[in-house]
């Protein structure tokens, strides 16, 4: 039987790749997200190698005695996964570039619903002025104005038109 105890170095590497990858995924810049995706993808690929058992001899039937060769299946799957990651990376790169072309940055923006809520909160603020914090922190109005908003075409929103 093949030894199934996982290789500690591989496990630690996977953990590191996932940690860094997740951290980068939480960034706003698409290029960093992309690097995060690549790192996590590689972590998953290594996980497959661990799943295939300890390293053995080449995974070729007939060349090596059964039980001493490596498991070929995870290697085949990793190969497929690598190809897929390559395609996705190319696409994300193209998208980051297009975003940079259009907006001058490649940030992943807030979704429309979030921005609506910020705007509604800003409208609501007139009705509820909190005197304790007045003048201390900047108002929601200013915050809303500061919130990045590329979709605002300058004609105002439905909320403001009413």
């Amino acid at each position, binding site marked *: *039987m*093949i030894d*199934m105890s996982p290789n500690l170095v591989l496990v630690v590497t996977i953990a590191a790749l996932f940690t860094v990858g997740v951290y980068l*995924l939480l960034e706003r810049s*698409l290029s960093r*997200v992309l690097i995060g*995706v690549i790192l*996590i*993808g590689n972590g*998953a690929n290594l*996980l*497959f190698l*661990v*799943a*295939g*058992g300890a390293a053995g001899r080449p995974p070729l*039937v*007939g060349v090596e005695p*059964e*039980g001493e060769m490596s*498991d070929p*299946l*995870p290697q085949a*799957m990793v190969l*497929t*996964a690598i190809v*897929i990651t390559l*395609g*996705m990376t190319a*696409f*994300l790169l193209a*998208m980051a570039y*297009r*975003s940079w072309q*259009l*907006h001058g940055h490649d940030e*992943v*923006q807030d*979704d*429309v*619903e979030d921005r609506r809520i910020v705007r509604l909160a800003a409208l609501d603020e007139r009705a509820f002025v909190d005197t304790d914090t007045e003048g201390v922190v900047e108002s929601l109005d200013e915050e809303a104005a500061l919130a990045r908003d*590329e*979709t605002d075409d300058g004609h105002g929103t*439905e909320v403001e*038109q009413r």
Partner: protein
Amino acid sequence: MTDMTWVVPLPVMLPLLGAGLTLALYGRPRVQRVVSVSVLSLALLASATLLVLADDGPLVVEIGGWAAPVGIDLVADRLSALMLTISGAVTLCVLLYSLAQSQEDDEESAPVSIYHPTYLVLTAGVANAFLSGDLFNLYVGFEILLAASYVLLTLGGTGERIRAGTIYVVVALLSSVLFLVAIAMIYAATGTVNLAQLAIRLPEIDPGTQLVLQVMLLLAFAIKAAIFPLSAWLPDSYPTAPAPVTAVFAGLLTKVGVYAIIRTQTLLFPGGRLDDVLMWAALATMLIGILGAVAQDDIKRLLSFTLVSHIGFMVFGIALSSEAGMTAAIYYVAHHITVQTALFLVVGLVERAGGSTSLERLGGLARFAPLLAVLFFVPAMNLAGIPPLSGFLGKVGLLEAGVASGTALAYVLVAGSVLTSLLTLYALVKAWNKAFWQTPPEDPLPARLPVGMVVPTAALVSLGLALTLAAGPLYAYTSRAAQALAERDPYVNAVLPDGERGPGESADVAETDEGGHG
């Protein structure tokens, strides 16, 4: 039974071949159109054939003649065949609609030569996911359809589409990675990714490990199926795409996730350990989704939220873990694919007729386009579940199954479903009133509705109605599908006769696997 298994790979192969062909013919849009329409029609024909054949038992094809647990196999059972047929009909209608639209719009800013290959690849990916007999092939199917969907969503590369596409792509990539990690862990735990063999091996491993694997798979699929709280990406990204693209996404992509949940829950994890969690998720998906829809004043976004909300119904059916619940869930999936797609196509027409999708700016369309009003009204009522339409039948099936299961939580969900249906009705009637009956804020320029776009829409609307007329046989079919899912043995035996290995010719490899590592 004559050997008809050669039909099984056709729904995947034909669109893929067509994609290659249309890509080579990028300079000849007319030939491209002919190729894609004929390819999709043939694929639909093959799927319909499978629908009939699979009723006698699952059909298995081992790709390249490699024996099952190691080689890749495609399996068409009742559930897959039904999903294939419905999705085939929907993709064909949407394709015809988009052809008419691109002809009318003179190709806008979109690089249309890319549209056909991408669309066909999307279809192939969906078919591959439905037919796939092992987890990794399912992952590949997902990736094929996702990659195509990224391209379709960002077609033209305008600012708004890139913004929406970014969120969509990142979320989709995250779910793919989760799925991949789950597959790796499943392989580590059981030494196989073949669904049939997993069905045999998974019950033998530690229950705790089983639970972890189940949760990981569910998480990955729940993101794809847009189940709350993993649904926030959907209403944000779908409405920005062109109408036919949104329609086919809304109809198919989330349903592939639902299909994957049904398949893995029934085949791999039959105990129903996470049913309570799924119930709560279903309830939250229904209610929060529909509340989002009520709050919208843009008809496309409103529909996207109803899409999220109605995924909850299917999850409810799955979570009941009974044959009645599964029957209703499958029927509901079939109904929802047609109806939601039809609604998005109608909204594309509304946008064309009224020049906007904002309910504040639309109005008086009933006067200019009475046919459009009918086309909107029928699927809208169908979605809300007005008797005797198919939405009503599906919901009644779910409610009956919920009551039959009799737990307190099931009753809560029954109440939640009724409330959701009422709110759906409210949201859609609001949209209907505002778009079609209110006095328009500014006089619209009544645009001519191209026949080429109206006919496929009408065809889909009538398909939704046909689901009502054919409800008896269809419900019987879904019931048999649910039965086969619950039994599991027919599926496992079809893939692995005698529980050992498939009939493929790679004997030596199959024997090697015998000494595998459990």
